[in-house]
């Protein structure tokens, strides 16, 4: 039977090769492409652009906090229209605008599309041995919805009102009543944010349906559930999170749109005053409802960010330690549990809303519970290192750095889970420090690992090692300079929304880090005011350093397409999963012959074999029974 399918697919492949020969027109091949790999790359390039843009917004904000009385330097001012800044300095509303858009862009247009959509699209069908996604045209629609949403978000900066200004959480009634002083409320950043979110959400929903259907129905022969690479499992759980958590946010966005455009009162309480005037709507709505709907998405979203990254690390580690992933099954069950629990922890973001002690106690309990599967995942990855002969390739460096960095991020989250401690830490820089440790040196490091790991697959060349090191080490150091001080000043009560340091800065000081001289002695002494400022200057320095550290990456990423070292065979890392069974780069239709999986995903250093890896697509030495009847899990 296997031979028959092979022959069939050879014939099909032949036809396909001919088809390729005709060469689809440029716009069909690169722009309105239905090929999952091209869509993955489109997502990748777009989201990398958005990451860079979000990073730029953050640099401006950091400058504003560190040097509130100095104008922005010319290189930050290049992209800002004059009407937004006063005397060259950022004012509060510009800071708010950048803050809101930094969060929105990084989460919805940067990290999620890079992790889930770009890597997921590119790698998942390859890893399950499919020729494409189950619904290729839906896949294309998904990308273009995302793209339109992104353009709308960017476009909102150019409106008279500027972009949205009330934080990435867009809480009502602040968001409902913001930017109403314009002739057309429709053409304001705040409204555009909601419309753009509707597009981004639609894109994610289409993507999620496609991923899950693909994984359920298009696995190669012999690829049983327990033979799926962990990455595929993570993609499926992520798909379910998006599928089920995003619609309530879509509801919230629609309701807020109604509040802004049709003057309904979903989130507007009775008796609201705006600028001292009664707000002319019926009232009777509930601001708390918006927070519930938002965080019902917002918390699973955290795992949507995390799972692709941790799954990439789970692919990179076995390939570079040359031994199987430790506890593959427990990781699978952990990720499923994690997915389920992530739906019932959302209100730990809302301890301060006064929703009631019993509700808080419930969500505190589930929040503590969810740390169990997270710790299982991280522990399995740690133990996987044990006893391996680790090759410190570029992807492995990023993956190795992911573990402690994400660990710090996770552990600093524990105090926030308890509502008593959260009373003190809520809305301080401690929270910012915590989730940036999770997302920036954690998740983004995982995504970098993925870029370095799969780069040979889509270009046929390796990225430069020296530039890679030049990217990695400064990034690692800069990330810590940037985020560690946040914890300190957060515990001291530094508020996350101050654009100029607020009350913690003396009004007259012009000291810089280097002038202050006694930086460390001031850290916990009574010179608290100066400390706050020094920490902010230090963090801004870290941010600048991080920006510089990305230059080698950009050079490396684009330069290696032309000048990178060519790989000698299609499987440069000696990996075992099916994406390395394709030609490099994979053609439209991916595999030369229909792949069959004969074994589990991480068969490294199998005793008795002559190589230290034993790919899924190669039959084992011994005669195997038919793959379909293989007992699950080898």
């Amino acid at each position, binding site marked *: 039977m296997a031979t028959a399918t092979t022959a069939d697919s050879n014939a099909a492949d032949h036809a396909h090769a001919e088809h390729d020969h005709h060469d689809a027109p440029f716009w069909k091949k690169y722009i309105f492409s239905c090929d999952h790999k091209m869509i993955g790359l489109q997502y990748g390039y777009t989201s990398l652009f958005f990451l860079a843009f979000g990073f730029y917004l953050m640099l401006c904000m950091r400058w504003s906090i560190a040097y509130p009385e100095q104008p922005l330097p010319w290189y930050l001012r290049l992209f800002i229209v004059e009407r937004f800044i006063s005397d060259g300095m950022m004012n509060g509303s510009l800071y708010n605008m950048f803050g809101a858009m930094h969060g929105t862009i990084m989460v919805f247009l940067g990290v999620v599309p890079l992790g889930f959509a770009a890597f997921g699209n590119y790698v998942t069908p390859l890893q399950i041995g499919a020729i494409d996604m189950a619904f290729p045209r839906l896949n294309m629609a998904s990308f273009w919805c995302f793209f339109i949403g992104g353009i709308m978000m960017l476009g909102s900066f150019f409106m008279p009102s500027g972009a949205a200004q009330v934080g990435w959480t867009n809480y009502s009634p602040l968001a409902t009543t913001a930017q109403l002083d314009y*002739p057309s409320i429709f053409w304001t950043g705040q409204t555009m944010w909601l419309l753009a979110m509707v597009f981004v959400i639609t894109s994610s929903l289409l993507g999620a349906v496609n991923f899950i259907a693909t994984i359920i129905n298009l696995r190669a022969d012999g690829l049983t559930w327990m033979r799926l690479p962990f990455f595929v499992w993570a993609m499926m759980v992520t798909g379910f999170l998006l599928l089920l958590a995003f619609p*309530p946010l879509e509801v919230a966005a629609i309701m807020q749109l109604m509040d802004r455009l*049709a*003057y309904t*009162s979903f989130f507007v309480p009775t008796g609201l005053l705006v600028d001292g005037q009664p707000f002319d709507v019926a009232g009777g709505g509930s601001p708390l409802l918006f927070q519930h709907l938002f965080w019902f998405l917002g918390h699973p979203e955290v795992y949507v960010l995390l799972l692709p990254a941790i799954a990439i690390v789970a692919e990179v580690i076995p390939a570079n330690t040359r031994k199987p992933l430790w506890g593959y099954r427990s990781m699978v069950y952990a990720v499923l549990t994690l997915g389920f629990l992530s739906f019932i922890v959302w209100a730990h973001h809302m301890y301060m809303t006064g929703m009631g002690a019993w509700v808080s106690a419930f969500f505190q309990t589930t929040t503590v519970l969810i740390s169990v599967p997270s710790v299982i995942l991280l522990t399995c990855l740690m133990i996987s290192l044990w006893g391996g002969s680790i090759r410190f390739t570029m992807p492995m460096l990023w993956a190795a750095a992911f573990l402690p960095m994400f660990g710090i991020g996770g552990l600093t989250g524990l105090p926030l889970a308890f509502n008593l401690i959260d009373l003190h830490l809520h809305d301080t820089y401690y929270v910012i420090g915590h989730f940036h440790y999770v997302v920036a040196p954690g998740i983004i490091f995982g995504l970098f690992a993925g870029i370095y790991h799969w780069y040979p697959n889509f270009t046929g060349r390796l990225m430069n090692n020296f530039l890679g090191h030049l990217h990695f080490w400064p990034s690692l150091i800069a990330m810590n300079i940037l985020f560690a001080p946040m914890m300190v000043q957060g515990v001291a009560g530094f508020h996350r929304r101050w654009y100029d340091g607020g009350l913690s800065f003396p009004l007259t000081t012009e000291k810089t880090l280097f002038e202050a001289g006694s930086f460390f002695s001031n850290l916990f002494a009574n010179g608290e005011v100066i400390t706050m400022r020094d920490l902010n200057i230090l963090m801004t320095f870290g941010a600048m350093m991080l920006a510089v550290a990305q230059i080698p990456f950009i050079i490396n990423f684009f330069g290696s397409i032309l000048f990178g070292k060519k790989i000698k065979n299609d499987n440069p890392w000696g990996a075992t999963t099916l994406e390395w069974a394709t030609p490099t780069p994979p053609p439209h239709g991916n595999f030369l012959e229909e792949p069959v999986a004969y074994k589990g995903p991480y068969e490294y250093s199998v005793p008795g074999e002559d190589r230290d890896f034993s790919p899924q697509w190669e039959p084992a030495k011994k005669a195997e029974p038919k793959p379909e009847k293989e007992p699950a899990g080898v």
Partner: protein
Amino acid sequence: MEIPHTVTARPDTGLWNAKVGIWLFLASEVMLFGGLFSSYVFLRLGADYPWPRDELQVPFGFVNTLILILSSVFVVYAWVALKMRQWNRYRVWMSLVVLCAAVFLVNKGFEYKAKFTHYHVTLKDDSIVSGHIHSREDKSIIFNADSVTVDAAGGNHVFLKWLENKDDIRFTAPDGTEVEPSRAWFADVKRGLKKRQKADQLAADGDDAASAKLMEEVNDKYSALNAFDDSGQLKLTLSQTGRFVIPRHKVLSWTDEQLDFTRALATKLDGKLVSATLKMQIDELDLREYLRHDDPREKAVADALIFDHFDDAAEGQQLLEDFNHYRDPKLAAHEEAVAEWKAKHPGVEYEPEPFYDFERVYLDKLHEEVHAEDETHSNAEGDHEQQAAAGADESGSHGHPSVSIPFEEVEFFSNFGPRKNTFYAIYFTMTGLHGLHVFGGMLVLGYFLFRGRKLYLKNPEHMANRVEVGGLFWHFVDLVWIFLFPIFYLM
């Protein structure tokens, strides 16, 4: 290159791709409507006004429910016909499905229209009336303007929208030049303003030459700006009296001589106020919030502001009498029941209901009731005067008196659209989204009906699969309505 399992099921999962896809899509739809239903519960529990329970037309909703259930059955027959490869039969059933969808939407359209043309006014003291407004002018502020003051930074041309006789009017600036305050003119003013600010900035930085050059350009190209005074205002005189008919919510404040548009428009009018009253013919009087019972204020029904604003004071007096006549026995009965309850439960604190339903009356019903009593009354006593009054009522507006309420006394006014309260907001949002789903389903099923022949001839099983997927979606849409109907119409 063919994606596998598009038509035939994968052996181990037993599913073809689109079937997996549609179930996943429906799962996300469940979450979408789940979010909305949860919001409904949240809003209803948190409502601080009497939640409307009998304001929607049950027959309309009931018929629509039947239509959707029927169409759900028809779509199954259509699918069966395809499975049995009977194309003509399929066409008949599918046509019925699409027809049902269309009838549903038309029905919905009638319901919506009735709500958008029915108005609700809350006065400052929370007394409420509902009814019909007969023209745009009856709900607008009318102002005869002699001059318009526009703002250079925030002004725009939008105010022209409400100038009735704008074709006959020319605007003149104080220096005698004629000005056309169009969109382009305002855009020029703003551009010039920006350039001037930049020139000032350059001058402040010491670059006089560049500043002078820029100022020259401003004077040259954006001379419109020169007419504005130092505070950025420009008063334009109208060649004849301009009649403005302005929606209330576009006006910030007004006096007899002056009117300020909202800040978004940044425009002022000088002239004479013609009218700032809301004129409507009422069909419902609702004093539940005025007479709240969880807040024991002693209020007399007769003191409610609304009774001051009847065009015909006698009608107001009549309504007041009728209302009391209707309410007093019910209130007495209620108080008796409460006293009984208190006697039965000594030591338990009695929590009064915040609102009593019998303190809202539909004028038609009230009229019927009171009129019936009148007849018996007059027959017994032969009171000719009352009989004559009742007769006049009948021949006239049938008990729908007209009121004119000055906008100063209006707390809130709206049609029965989404703005009215959170009930109508969630009603319109949910039924609107549901209606969009019906419309989408109608398009897709219509496509299968009119454009399915080609695929049917090529691969009938594929066509049947498509109809199955469309049918599953259609069932879902039906199911959502089955939940929507009771929560909005019945509960």
